[in-house]
């Protein structure tokens, strides 16, 4: 507009016309139809059947009658299963806090002290993340083996305990946490710290009052990004606890593999999703807030 105003009126009119005629290229909305159809049939379909199963009644082995039977949900709220839900959430919370404690200093180090090799350091953090999840967990199991060096020579025999599960959670989710935190540390204006220390603030005070506050949205994003999948974790507790420390995901799997109590397994699944949806809503709120904050 500003450019057009400077030009003589004769030239401005055809320019504006031409702009109106050239349309913004769009792609037709029906291009979303294939994926929409696919999601409806093969994602929403299974979810709907899951809800129907969770309200169905088990009749003998493997046959069931659809209805509105909430007794499965009643069983979910018995102390045995509430304990497993509690354990899963506590373990995911512990895993998340450990991931923050281990990962934040690394992200800080990359953003604050590295320049030439910053991107390389980041890439190296991500490399294990792109290798097989199963192979990584298996590799950890070799190290923690009761006959291995760690157990035999250092006396750290933690395989098949909750400690091994915690190590596995941190190990597998660390890169996922470091990335968003690094991104928010990258946006930091380090001259603020210089100004604070010049004005007499101790380094730790400057960190607490400036760095930590400015990067808190990134930390919350990263924490939820690892907490949510940790809560639904299946492989890590299975391999590293050897069935001694099961998560909700393992109990769900058992209902379909061994117990053949599919309505109860479905009710557990729905309950897990409901529990997670709380955190997902928090995540969406934080993420949109950070977007506004960043802009």
């Amino acid at each position: 507009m500003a450019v057009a105003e400077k030009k003589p009126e004769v030239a401005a009119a055809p320019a504006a016309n031409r702009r109106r005629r050239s349309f913004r290229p769009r792609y037709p909305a029906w291009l979303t139809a294939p994926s929409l159809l696919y999601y409806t049939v093969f994602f929403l379909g299974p979810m709907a059947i899951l809800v129907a199963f969770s309200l169905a009644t088990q009749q003998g082995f493997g046959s069931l009658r659809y209805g509105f039977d909430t007794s499965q949900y009643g069983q979910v709220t018995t102390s045995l299963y509430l304990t497993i839900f509690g354990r899963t959430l506590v373990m995911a919370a512990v895993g998340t806090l450990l991931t923050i404690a281990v990962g934040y200093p690394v992200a800080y180090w990359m953003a604050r002290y590295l320049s030439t090799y910053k991107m390389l350091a980041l890439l190296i953090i991500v490399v294990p993340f792109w290798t097989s999840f199963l192979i990584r967990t298996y590799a950890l199991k070799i190290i923690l083996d009761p006959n291995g060096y760690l157990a035999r020579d250092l006396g750290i025999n933690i395989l098949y305990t909750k400690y091994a599960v915690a190590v596995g959670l941190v190990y597998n989710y660390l890169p996922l946490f470091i990335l968003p935190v690094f991104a928010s540390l990258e946006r930091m204006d380090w001259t603020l710290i210089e100004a604070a220390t010049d004005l007499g603030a101790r380094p730790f005070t400057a960190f607490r009052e400036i760095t930590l506050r400015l990067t808190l949205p990134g930390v919350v994003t990263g924490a939820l990004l690892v907490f949510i999948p940790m809560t639904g974790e299946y492989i890590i507790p299975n391999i590293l606890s050897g069935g001694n420390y099961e998560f909700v995901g393992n109990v769900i799997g058992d209902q379909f593999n061994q117990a053949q109590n599919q309505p109860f397994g479905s009710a557990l699944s729905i309950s897990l999703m409901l529990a997670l949806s709380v955190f997902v809503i928090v995540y969406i709120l934080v993420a949109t807030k950070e977007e506004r904050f960043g802009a």
Partner: protein
Amino acid sequence: MRRRPRLTAKHAFTAWAVLVYAFLFLPIVVMAVFAFNKPSAAALASFHGTNVCAIPPTQIGNIAVWNGFTGCWFSAGLHDPTFIPAIFVSLRIAAEASVIATVLGLCAALALARMRPRLRAPFDSLVYLTLVVPEIVIAVASLIFFVQARKVFPAFPGLGNVTILIGQVVFNASLTMLIIRARFVGMGDTLEEAAYDLGSGPLATFRQVTLPRLMPAIVAAALLSFTFSFDDYVLPAFTNGTTNTWPIVLYSAVRFGLTPAVNALATIMLGVTLAAVVITALVLRRSRRRVTAGQPITAVQLLP
């Protein structure tokens, strides 16, 4: 004088970072090194074959400590009657899932990128839902869905390769859509507009302007989708019927006794995956450089 404390803080952070990098890589390195490990001396004393890697897994002894060097696990692994067919099954499913997911994701990304936010929102929430729902939940839901679908429509495929594929495409289509859309939004629409102004039709513009510039993101999305699908354990474990994929046989080997042949195959896989990741990274970097460099493309280049 004032510099000194900052220097020590830097040293402390560097030391911590080195420790964390070691923590991340030690297990992988140990796994690769132990792919060359011999059976224990006690086990070998009572074994009378020439090929030490032919020893049965139950008699292998303690292989969590170093017993000596042998390269024979690699050939033992590559000739294993269960692992190798499973790897081929996984490769095939991953290739099919990657192609289907990339086509679905590309179509959706094109339309969504320039759709009004209010129209886009329901589709977006569906996509995020497929990424946030725990995989174990999707796995059991898919299992009962497939079983019921076959009861109602006998033509529906039974549990096996096809059901694994169907289930994996859900997650992968969301992944490819997000990657391709991010690139498409970043590209802007000036070049397409220019092509339209110069009289190029929508299809020709797509083929000659949009598609070539999207190609790096499409390739990256397809490769990522391939690796995810190839590595996936939870969903196939519930929807496989009698089909064995590589993660499924690997998982049962990990849980119930295994030989360093698994390490050997895992090490080979690791090499292949890393190669794929490096290629993806290079492709992505090339595409990013092209965007940020922002070389003005002249009208001449747009003409056929």
